[in-house]
């Protein structure tokens, strides 16, 4: 039943610079993109940055990223056996890798 997703992930710090890095992620049908990102952190590279809290419930709404150019929640997009391009939200300030500044200014420590 195991499939492999080829994740191309935009990695880099701040607004400028960065590169695509590629990871092969084994998965079982039904697993989410966030499952895949967490697998990469535990098994390949823990320095990969992704913002999430609730993991599975789609309640915290923190894991918004772009998948193949479309905005998705990583926790509800499913892994597929093909190349999937993951990019930080392009309309938000980039922090690191897939993490962007998504809090309203009044809820940030530094505006």
């Amino acid at each position: 039943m195991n499939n492999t997703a080829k994740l191309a992930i935009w990695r880099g710090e701040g607004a400028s610079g960065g590169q695509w890095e590629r990871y092969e992620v084994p998965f079982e049908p039904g697993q989410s993109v966030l499952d895949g990102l967490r697998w990469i952190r535990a098994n390949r590279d823990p320095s990969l940055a992704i913002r999430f809290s609730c993991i599975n419930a789609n309640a915290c709404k923190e894991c918004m990223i772009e998948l193949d150019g479309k905005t998705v929640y990583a926790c509800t997009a499913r892994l597929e056996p093909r190349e999937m391009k993951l990019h930080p939200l392009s309309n938000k300030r980039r922090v690191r890798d897939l993490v962007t500044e998504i809090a309203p200014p009044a809820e940030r420590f530094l505006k």
Partner: protein
Amino acid sequence: MNPDPMHVETDVLIIGSGAAGMYAAIEAARAGRSVFLVDRSLIGRGGATVMAQMTVAVALGSETPDHWSHHYDDTLAAGRELCDRRLAQLLCEEAPICILEMEQWGIGWARKNGHIAQAFAPGHDRPRCVYVDFLNTGPAVSKTLRAVVTRDKRIRKAGDLLTVDLAKVDDEVAGAVALHLPTGTPVTIAAKATIIATGGLTRLYQRNSASANMGGDGYALALRAGAPLIDMEFVQFFPIGHLAPRLIGMDPIMWDPFRYKLGGRLLNSEGEEFTARYGVSEDGRYVVTRDLATYAIIKEVEAGRGSPHGGAFLSFRHCSGAELRAAFGPVIDRLARNNIDLTKMPVEVAPIAHYHMGGVVADERMQTELPGLLVAGEAVGGAITEALVFGRRAGQSAAARATRMTAQPFRPEAARTSLDLLASGTDRTDINTAAMVASLQRTMANDVGPFRAAARLKRALVSIEEMVRALGERPVADGGAFDLRRLEWFDLRNMLLVARTVAMAALARTESRGAHQREDFPGMLPQWRVNQVARLGGGEIALARAPAAVEALAK
């Protein structure tokens, strides 16, 4: 690589922005105090509150006549003689105030024939649970409180701010030291009163209904500052957490409201309703308490009558499609997108770590043993009702202290050790922090789960000590923004301390009571009608027994 520390001064510091933290912030600001509300994640988004899909118990009396004393009696009965009666009374008596205030703030509790609807739930003697349709109670609580917090200019808010340690001057808590995750900036916070509202510890377990933030931060902060914890062995497992088929975009606790509304049948692999074998016959109703259902499911699995993935079946096949849609509307479509049709198939469910009943020792003002330190919500133990009532009370008590104090007790020396720790991080590659979290979660699930025995608990303590050694004294830090390895190092520092406390308390309690079940010590013993209190001293956890607080509050 380490930016210079920044400094913030406030009357009241609140750590955690779930329901407890936000209610506390509103209450402290209402008393005229300045408030700094911080969260390691985003404000009002990352805790447990937003994930609570189901219901809130309150003696509102809108469905059938009720009085807080009935809610109190049910609470004590469920507490297996260990409840702090002062806190139980406070909870039951003041819950209606909070629920009605939430209604004024526009939460929109579900209504029936013009009154606020109250559903029946196991452990309660009458319909007592209010909710927001559909499966939207927690998000609605969060959104409502966040809107009030946003309007109040006396409340400064900061997400992405991880509290690393409390700052102490003599024996008083005088604020905290934090880390701003996006920039790596250390932050010192001076506060006349500090409230821990960080939620529980269910992230310690492999299968849990928590968010990634619930690693017991508040318990660890309190322990290291010298405040004791109580009842840490009592981790509540929710018996019917979703197990299979793979379901995404839903909280695994979602079957609870299904059972409230539609009953449902809990079946073993032979298709029988089995809870009667363990003392409670359900017959399609939802009456069995959580600890008994957890016990029953695990015993059925052990007896070879479990579902394929190692749980039980939950069936709603007796319900028509129309009934299901009337009860859960759009949720039925979300299930369909996961290829689940409840009219045709059962789902598999199994116990899942759900919330913590122990917590930081506090009195009825939510005051801990340490002056300047208060606590609220699941950090004291409990769920949404506790978050609202204890949050409100903690906010009042913190404001009262801040009003009394003319000067900040904070001194820069109070932050030095924690700032040095933050500055000592190096780009270690000898450990994978994400893998270590997963490893700890497996250890806790396998050896410190709902069913316990001395040999497995001791094995867990050995694993935990090995992980403490591997974690080492110096944080992982790569000097970059949003450094998740650095965050996880500090998380593991907390999680391992709390995991050790839970395992030690579970090993010491040589009986079975409520959520703490020992295979090697079945049955409840009268000599264990005591709470266990844990303190940290010289790097060691010390446990002491204290008689349960059986005195009710003076009327």
